[in-house]
């Protein structure tokens, strides 16, 4: 504290205490923010864990339902079970996207999120394999796309590709099943296994009903492929078959 008169000559004062205090308060606020952030991150981990537990249960139940149909030859129940399948896979996808976002912002809980991501990759594979088996069982007219993606550096087009796939999923609903695999996740042995099986070297790569397609595929390209596969060529596929 100084009055206007007290300073004369070339004496300059330095508010050292204020710099230290301001630095400490700034650091304090920063740490407070950091702790709040970590607390929220912890909540996010718990949230995904509990959702994923529930989803695992749903999968077991679904598996059981199909086994039941198979064993008791209850094919008339296929439609109801297929609906459950569709619901499950949608919930799986929305949690996967949420997890992707949480993981991007994560600091200290990166490992927990990675474990959860791993679980979701396995879940995708499980559902895909279940879909392959039940398609024969129920004789359903469903097309599958496997989508291999990577980060922005390796795959600048993946953003576009994901957008187009999401759009097509909205158009075809339960008639189109899309399973996406993060190829950056090499710690899961299933990823390299799938990559060699389908000869994936570039990103994005789509496997549309077993046919491998490298690089970005536009809406029309994908439509042509899946419509070629469908027995029922109405709706979006009607236009395609007309133009041919």
């Amino acid at each position, binding site marked *: 504290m*100084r009055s*206007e008169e007290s300073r004369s000559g070339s004496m300059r004062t330095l508010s050292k205490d204020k710099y230290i205090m301001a630095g400490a308060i700034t650091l304090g*606020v920063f740490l407070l*923010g950091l702790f709040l*952030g970590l607390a*929220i991150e912890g909540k996010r981990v718990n*949230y995904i864990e509990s959702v994923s537990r529930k989803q695992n249960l749903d999968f077991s139940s679904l598996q059981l339902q199909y086994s039941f149909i198979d064993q008791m030859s209850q094919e008339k129940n296929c439609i109801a079970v297929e609906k459950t399948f569709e619901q499950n896979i949608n919930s799986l996808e929305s949690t996967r996207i949420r997890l992707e976002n949480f993981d991007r912002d994560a600091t200290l809980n990166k490992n927990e999120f990675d474990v959860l991501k791993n679980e979701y990759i396995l879940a995708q594979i499980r559902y895909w394999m279940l879909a392959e088996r039940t398609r024969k069982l129920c004789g359903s007219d469903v097309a599958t796309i496997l989508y291999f993606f990577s980060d922005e550096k390796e795959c600048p087009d993946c953003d576009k590709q994901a957008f187009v796939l999401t759009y097509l999923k*909205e158009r075809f609903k339960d008639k189109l099943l899309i399973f996406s695999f993060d190829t950056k996740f090499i710690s899961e042995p299933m990823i390299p296994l799938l990559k060699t099986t389908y000869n994936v070297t570039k990103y994005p790569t789509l496997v549309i009903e077993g046919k491998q397609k490298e690089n970005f595929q536009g809406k029309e390209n994908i439509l042509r492929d899946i419509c070629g596969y469908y027995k029922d060529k109405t709706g979006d596929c009607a236009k395609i078959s007309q133009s041919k």
Partner: protein
Amino acid sequence: MPIPIYVRVALWTAYLMSLFFAVFWFLVLLDKEPGASKKKLKKYPLVSIVIPAYNEENNIIPTLKSLTQLEYPKNRLEIIVVNDGSKDNTKSAAEKFIIQNREFDIKLISKKNSGKGASLNKGLEAAKGEFFVVLDADSIATKDALMKILPHFTDDNIAVVLPLLKVDRPKNFWQRMQWLEYIVNMFYKKLMSRLNCVHVSPGPFSVYRKSILKKIGGFDEDNLTEDLEISLRLQSKHYRIIQLMDAEVFTIAPKTFRELYKQRNRWYKGSVINAFKYNHMMFNKNYGDFGIIQMPTIIISGLIAVILILSSFYYGLKPYAKAAYNSVLIDFDFYTLIKTFKFDFSILDLNYTAIFVSVLMLAISILILRKSHKETKEDVGRHGILSLISYLFFYFLVIGFIWIGIIFDFAFRRKQKW
């Protein structure tokens, strides 16, 4: 998609530095105000008021008139109009006013156009007063300004005393923004003044002790912002500059964005150039708080503004740009997207970092706005809530935009036009 690490570092540095500055000046505010230790004016010292005028035929008369209404003995006032080679009728307007006001000592000096610094030095040569007042021709002093300022020259070391500067009757959006800006600025300068950190003595009614002004060699005639240069020079020689909160002076602010851009481009560019010119004070503790916090602030504030504007644009516009780009891929079939849209939201999805930083910044800004208005004895809502909101959320973009212009100018070495 992850944000590049250098962007994160730049953003966090900008946030933390802004927070540090805010906290520091808040601590200065918490210090008790040193008791107003004014001397009573025992006698009326001779005061010379210099008006540098270049093409000011519309403004010069109201400015001169405000001087004739000053509460100060007429015979202790010397008014000097320096006509800087005006191409309009500034000269004849001033001459007419002189004839009509014979009881005042008003001189008119005419010279070839050579800039404001040179005009002020011409005035300094001619001035006989103990105190030397600079008054831009677009500014109006209130009656009691001089009587309120002079008693603050309590110490021989005090070189300049600055009045409370406000925007004259703001009429449109840009002027109202500047009205608020000046209010906040004055509050900030008052705090600076407490730590002897004032770095600019603007043109409207800055009162100098003439002997000091002469000793340091007058104004720089070849400077973009001679008012900033003189203050840095005074600081480098350890003189004091005091900011008052009670002597009011009104200045006409730029009316359009173009005018504002030109003015600020010159101001900020001048501040960068002069900060480099006096960089020996930067982070130098021989210059006390001025060296440690004020000199770096001159540069850093511009950098922070640029970082904030770039990040605002990046985060604000990128999602829309991407959505527009993507919609081509689906032949603009928004109907499907809207029809199938599922509201899937969890409270955990919110970006808490962004919320934390924004709430903190907003709280600090509101606190500053309130405090500034209180200190300058103004009503916060004087120009409406819309002005306040635009000032809080929009004006920093304007300032940031001007700084980006300056970076471009420096990068491409564009010559400065006055």
